[in-house]
């Protein structure tokens, strides 16, 4: 089997002492940040991105992937113990996880979440290994119109499938696209929207934008409305074993969650958050005792936790094979790859197989490490929750500033970060969620270039997008998605799906 050969290459690359170490540091830092209140995976990745600059690309990506699912993992721990989701994809875990904890089954809930996630992570890894090569073979036949249509579909789905106001989210994507165009136009050499500032000639730097919009605005949000202090429920390591009844309820839910999450993760616009919500809804629907949900249903923990982890894994597939990030977290990963000098896409698998397969293998290793380090260290993570915010936020701020300084020593970069912090603050006050903006920002130049090329090939005839079968299908799907939001029945369903919180 070719898949296993590939995986062997991957495990060889990821299994080096150095890479194992960075994987370990990554999951550890990720969990640490995930446990801390108010820092989701996007700011976590942004804040820790600079640490990886000095590493070689594979180690850097392994560490970043580790941070990502570490953060997710940490988020479920706080959901269960404190009823405080560390990030959006563990919001649903709060509902039943915390109820289980209140009933004295905190340890069991944590163990079910951990083992369910690990199982999902394993399946997710196999998914990537199996679907990566055929998808990237298809991707190599993609031409400019296909890519343009794919990005359009991805952006539309990202807006439709995320929760929040659709129109505002579309505007955020568009503003992101516009910001992505700032700088020198590669075709004419003219500078666009630089307002005569030389620091913008090469485009808006990624890190000041992300840190300003997410890292620092989050601090301001917490300072303005301090979250109420909550007492974590105490757990000891020996309480971790779920009883037989719980295991019987958990494992089918985890399997369903894994399947659902794996599929939703691949979809453009899908990802961990959607997967968790969808799995919760599914479990509630097929359960024989739906009334039990909300008061500590085991399935309500096992399903969503497996689903969000599976989706977190498989959402790497579009990024690694098509070069298109399917959600804002993947946009940050893509930004990191570009900073490392790698253009994500179908070519990565053939030109750098060690990189591709090494990363895939490291995901499984990282998941294993998470189970091993997290469960025994629960006590330590809980104690972390008592670090007062008054000490935490200045340190986060300093990390952001150092991060920006290490990409460029220009004082202008700090000015840029301040500009985006003010912009992010305005967005916060106006109820606009900035995550879709990052997606647009990363895709802006790519979309323009593919649109231009498509129209050059067709001599200006927009029908080119409908004549090619691939792009035609993608555009039809995009139109269907738009119709779905306009169609009131579906809109109600979508609101229901995200209403569990």
């Amino acid at each position, binding site marked *: 089997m070719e898949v296993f050969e590939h995986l062997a290459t991957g495990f060889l690359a990821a299994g080096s002492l150095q890479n194992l170490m960075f994987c370990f540091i990554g999951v550890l830092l990720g969990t640490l940040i995930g446990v801390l209140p108010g820092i989701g995976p996007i700011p976590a990745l942004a804040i820790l991105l600079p640490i990886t600059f000095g590493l070689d690309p594979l180690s850097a990506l392994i560490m970043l992937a580790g941070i990502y699912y570490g953060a997710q993992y940490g988020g479920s721990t706080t959901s269960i113990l404190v009823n405080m989701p560390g990030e959006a994809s563990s919001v649903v875990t709060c509902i039943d996880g915390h109820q289980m904890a209140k009933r004295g089954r905190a340890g069991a809930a944590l163990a079910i979440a951990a083992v369910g996630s690990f199982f999902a992570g394993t399946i997710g890894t196999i998914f990537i290994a199996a679907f990566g090569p055929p998808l990237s073979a298809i991707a190599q036949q993609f031409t400019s119109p296909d890519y343009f249509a794919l990005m359009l579909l991805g952006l539309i789905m990202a807006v439709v499938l995320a929760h929040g106001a659709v129109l505002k989210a579309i505007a955020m994507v568009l503003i992101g696209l516009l910001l992505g165009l700032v700088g020198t136009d590669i075709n004419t050499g003219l500078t666009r929207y630089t307002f005569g500032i030389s620091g913008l000639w090469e485009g808006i730097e990624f890190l000041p934008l992300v840190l300003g919009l997410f890292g620092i605005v989050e601090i301001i949000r917490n300072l303005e409305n301090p979250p109420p202090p909550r007492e974590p429920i105490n757990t000891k390591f020996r309480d971790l074993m779920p009883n037989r009844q719980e295991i019987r309820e958990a494992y089918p839910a985890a399997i369903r969650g894994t399947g659902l999450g794996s599929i939703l993760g691949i979809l453009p616009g899908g990802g961990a958050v959607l997967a968790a919500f969808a799995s919760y809804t599914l479990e509630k629907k097929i359960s024989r005792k739906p009334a039990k949900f909300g008061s500590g249903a085991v399935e309500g923990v096992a399903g969503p936790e497996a689903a969000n982890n599976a989706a977190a894994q498989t959402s790497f597939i579009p990024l690694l094979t098509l070069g298109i990030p399917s959600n804002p977290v993947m946009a940050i990963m893509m930004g990191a790859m570009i900073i490392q000098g790698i253009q994500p896409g179908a070519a990565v698998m053939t030109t750098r197989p060690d990189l591709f397969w090494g990363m895939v293998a490291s995901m499984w290793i990282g998941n294993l490490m998470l189970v091993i380090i997290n469960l025994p260290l629960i006590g330590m993570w809980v104690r972390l929750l008592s670090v007062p915010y008054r000490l935490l936020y200045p340190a986060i701020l300093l990390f952001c500033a150092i991060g920006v300084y290490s990409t460029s020593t220009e004082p202008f970069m700090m000015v840029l970060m301040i500009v985006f912090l*003010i912009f992010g603050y305005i967005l916060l006050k106006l109820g606009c969620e900035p995550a879709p903006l990052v997606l647009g920002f990363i895709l802006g130049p790519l979309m323009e270039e593919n*649109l231009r090329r498509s129209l050059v090939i067709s001599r200006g005839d927009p029908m080119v997008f409908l004549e090619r079968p691939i792009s035609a299908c993608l555009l039809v799907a995009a139109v269907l998605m738009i119709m779905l939001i306009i169609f009131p029945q579906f809109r109600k369903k979508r609101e229901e799906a995200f209403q569990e919180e």
Partner: protein
Amino acid sequence: MISIKSPQDFGAGVLFILIGAIGILTGQDLAFGSARSMGPGFFPTIICALIILIGLIVAGKALVVEGPAIERIQFRPIFFLIVAIAAFGFLISKVGVVISAILMIVLAAYARREKVNILETLIFAAATAFFIVLIFVYALEQPMPVWWW
């Protein structure tokens, strides 16, 4: 008499219209070109037009549909955080990372409303600066001045 039913959405709509308008006005000297050969102004102009369109819809809807009010703006947190970042950014190349980091943490501490324990803050700032030097300068070997010499 038209009244704003959803201040948050109305503000967002106005913001979008403003951004789109700035984009179109400042991008006026960029050649639009034609579909056959897109100029540098082609794609941005389309995007700005779409942003304005959505801005109009969002603002228009805000006149009809009830929505949340805009939360009060608190100047203290954002002001001190900006000052802290600016101080760090302009001082680091002159006095080195240790002093600029300590200064940043002390300034940032004043962003919250409660009384600041200056001794605790200074000790914490010094310890954090020490760790930053350890991680970024020694472990990661980032080019960064530690002191002013």
